[in-house]
């Protein structure tokens, strides 16, 4: 009996051998041509594996496509950990963290325009101001500066502490000095002199930063409390509101005149000028940290959530209405971490 099975097994494996010509797993897909009037989803991929990708979904949620960078640029590899994306005119700058690269593409066709590599050391986030691209680097603790048109490196601004998300307000750069739930400062840089102007101290657990109507909003959340800061960009001083009920608040995103944020599996919203945190969730998901809301964004009243699915398989993006009704669910690439409106 055993003999017979083994014999069959060996015969079977002979056939396996004979037919083992390597199948290519690449999915052939044709470019949609235009990736505007929609949302770009960055799938960061697995650390140490160059499998980052970008997905697209139209604003009306009817058309979507995965892997658009590879579909449009079949000879190129996006890289290892696509961390973030920023726009300038018709360009998108994709910061590829572990590859030490910024991939420049046309934001509408997704045609590759070039790759920036100089002085990038574990790049994290970027922003464009006055035709200059500013990139934060985790390894060198510096902001590196490039010409946003020629992609040529120009200089580095040494901050000497963690530099993470970066935004522009009032012709100044605001850089979060914290990542992974640690850090309590914002560094303000004057781009005309490339000098650090001041450092604003906030609460521990700084995790999100955004400019709105000339002010900079900063969310911090830790084991004791959560605080929202509003920085006056003329005086670079901050005022704050606090919640001790909601701890570890993160994923702040401003859409219209509402501030959205998450706490574990729940999504909340409050007015831009609210005096207290809203503690009534819009909706609540089963919570698995680092998977649920690994990516989060609110665009034109729709809530986009990216579930990293444990990083061991493709992530899931669920799109909700502003009241929490599921509008669409789609499977994207590995670890969807952020959403960008591309109109």
């Amino acid at each position, binding site marked *: 009996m*055993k*003999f017979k*099975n*083994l*014999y069959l*097994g*060996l*015969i079977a*494996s*002979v056939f*396996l*051998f*004979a037919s*083992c010509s*390597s*199948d290519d*797993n690449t*999915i052939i897909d044709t470019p949609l041509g235009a990736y505007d009037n929609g949302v770009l989803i960055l799938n960061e991929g*697995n650390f*140490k*594996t*160059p*499998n980052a990708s970008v997905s697209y979904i139209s604003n009306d949620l009817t058309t979507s496509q995965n892997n658009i960078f590879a579909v449009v640029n079949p000879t190129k*590899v996006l*890289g*290892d950990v696509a961390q973030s994306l920023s726009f300038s005119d018709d360009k998108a700058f994709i910061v*590829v963290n*572990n*590859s*030490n*690269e910024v991939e420049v593409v046309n934001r509408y066709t997704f045609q590759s325009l070039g790759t920036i*590599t100089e002085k*990038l*050391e*574990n790049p994290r986030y970027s922003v464009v101001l006055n035709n200059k691209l500013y990139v934060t680097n985790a*390894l060198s603790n510096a902001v590196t500066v490039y010409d946003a048109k020629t992609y040529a490196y120009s200089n580095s601004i040494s901050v000497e502490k963690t530099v993470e998300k970066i935004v522009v307000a009032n012709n100044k750069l605001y850089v979060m000095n914290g990542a*992974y*739930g640690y850090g309590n400062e914002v560094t303000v840089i004057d781009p005309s002199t490339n000098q650090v102007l001041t450092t604003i101290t906030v609460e521990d657990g700084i995790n999100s930063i955004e400019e709105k109507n000339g002010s900079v909003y900063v969310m911090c959340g830790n*084991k004791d409390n959560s605080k929202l800061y509003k920085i006056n960009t003329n005086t670079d001083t901050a005022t704050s509101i606090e919640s001790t009920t909601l701890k*570890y608040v993160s994923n702040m995103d401003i859409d219209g005149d509402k501030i959205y944020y998450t706490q*574990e599996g729940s999504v909340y919203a409050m007015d831009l000028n609210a005096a207290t945190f809203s503690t009534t969730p819009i909706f609540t998901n089963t919570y*698995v*940290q*680092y*998977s649920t809301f690994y990516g989060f964004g609110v665009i034109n009243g729709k809530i986009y959530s990216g579930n990293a699915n*444990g990083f*061991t*398989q*493709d992530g899931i993006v669920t799109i909700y209405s502003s009241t929490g009704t599921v509008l669409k669910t789609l499977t994207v690439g590995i670890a969807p971490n952020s959403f960008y409106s591309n109109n």
Partner: protein
Amino acid sequence: MILKKRFTFCLLLLCQFILAQHDSITKLKEVVVSDSNLKRFSNTQSIQRLSDSIISKNESSLTSLLNYNTVIYFKENGLGMTSSPSFRGTTSQQTVVVWNGININSQLLGQADFNTISTRSFNSIDVKAGGGSVVYGSGAIGGTIHLNNDLKFTDTFKNDFQIYYGEFNTLSAVYGITAATEKWSVDASFTRNSSDNDFKFVGQEVWNKNGQYYNNSLNAAVGYKINDKNTVKFYSEIFDGERHFSLTSPNETKTKYQDYNTRNLLTWSSNFSKFESNLRLAYISEHYKYYEDIKREGFTSGGVKSFIGKYDIDYAISSAIKVSTILDYTKNNGLGSGIGRNNREIGGASILWKHNLNDKWNYEWSARKEISDVYKSPVLFSAGSRYNFSDFYHLKVNVSRNFRIPTFNDLYWEGSGNPDLKPENSFQAEIGNEFKYKDFRLTVTAYGMKIKDMIRWLPNNSGNWSPENTDRVTIYGAEALLGWKRNFNKHTFDFSGTYAYTVSLNDKTDKQLFYVPYHKLTGSLSYYYKKLSAYYQIMYTGEIFTTSDNNPKYILDAYNVSNVGADYNFSKKNIFKIGVRVANLWNEKYEALPSRYMPGRNATIYLNLNY
């Protein structure tokens, strides 16, 4: 292409009635084995011995040796980089490397890095499939790999020098000395391996970057027979290596990793008419340094120093019954970035029983209980029986319960470690069928296994990844080891091969665990004619899932890699061999892990001297 296929096809047809691996251990009387329990209490499981002649035909890393000669699948992060096994569908931490009877898996990671073990320092390497926690402790679930320095007590004086030089400036050299009288025995060697490892990826204009490595190891085994009844032995190994980690994208930050491991073991064996006793004292240290950017000076480091004391007494109740008890004590001191300073103490007691009911039938059972200050341990056991129906057919059955304890990183990692972890727990059963006919041997083993409380690092509430006892896994499969040796006049053919079919399912999702291939097959054919010897090896690994949902988009293709070599011995009485070896003969493009391409066709020349 056509030729290649036809060749493999023919070779495989041959494989159906050939191939050879000796699965029982036969030894000369004067050889004192380093691990007596392996010989005595493993009659109901399958053991495959890789002799020194097999070791010297393969590349010097333990990964390469086992990849081409056993059913074990390796998750190798590029040639020479970190490499961990999957044996019988289990995880990297569920296979144990046993050095002269002592478990040497890393206390930090729970697994051994098979590219930091240089095979040429050992006389033989045994591969035992299945559970072995009763004797070898934590992690012996999928199987155990035994590295042996066996000592001979007969008048000998031999020098051995082997040097291999190949493409990518790859050097492997070993110098060893074996000297013995009836009282003394010394076996010492120095091994050096290094490579620029800058090979070109097959079919791409891309080269392996930042993959260079070197390692040195110094081994010594000394034995002294105090009198007829008492023998003292001392084994020592120092391993020092540095690897740059090869890049997966061209502008990535370059990193490197250094290992420094030492192993020392003192044993005292006493032999009386009915008693035998063995005292072993071991001191083992592991230490690493990781440079996150080779241009900068900063690094993270860590290490564990372990003291192990083991005392076993064997008592022959009658000529047919042997009972053995083992008492042991282990103390681990860990210190490093991320784990702080932590100690762990484990005490254990085992009892082993072996009974030959008659010439044909024996059974054995064993049990073990550990007490630790850190975790609660179940009662482990193993029970098995062997029945020799005829010279042609032997049947073996074995059931066992095995476990894996949480590692230092699992328990103590800053902000993540989980001190409440339970050990991983496994029950398994196997049936082995051994067939022998003239020069032909075949072992077919079917097994099944349940593992629960598998430790997996998952995200937790405080913003960190943390280990938890979550998964349950069901594994079943079959292995075949096949061997045949035949002389035709002066021509000798020696075939050996292995095949494994492995199903390893996550109970929750019913999906195959990723990085466990369903099929793996190896085969080697050696040919000897007078002073000439030639060999051909193949290793086939079936397609591998790389995601937990078994998404076909991320499957790694099956690969089939062949090596060929030949050498000629110019010496009449001793060994003066010059040879050449071509690895990946058919220039197969393959990757064992995503984006970790392996070298294409490459050649090595070698010289072996033994006087």
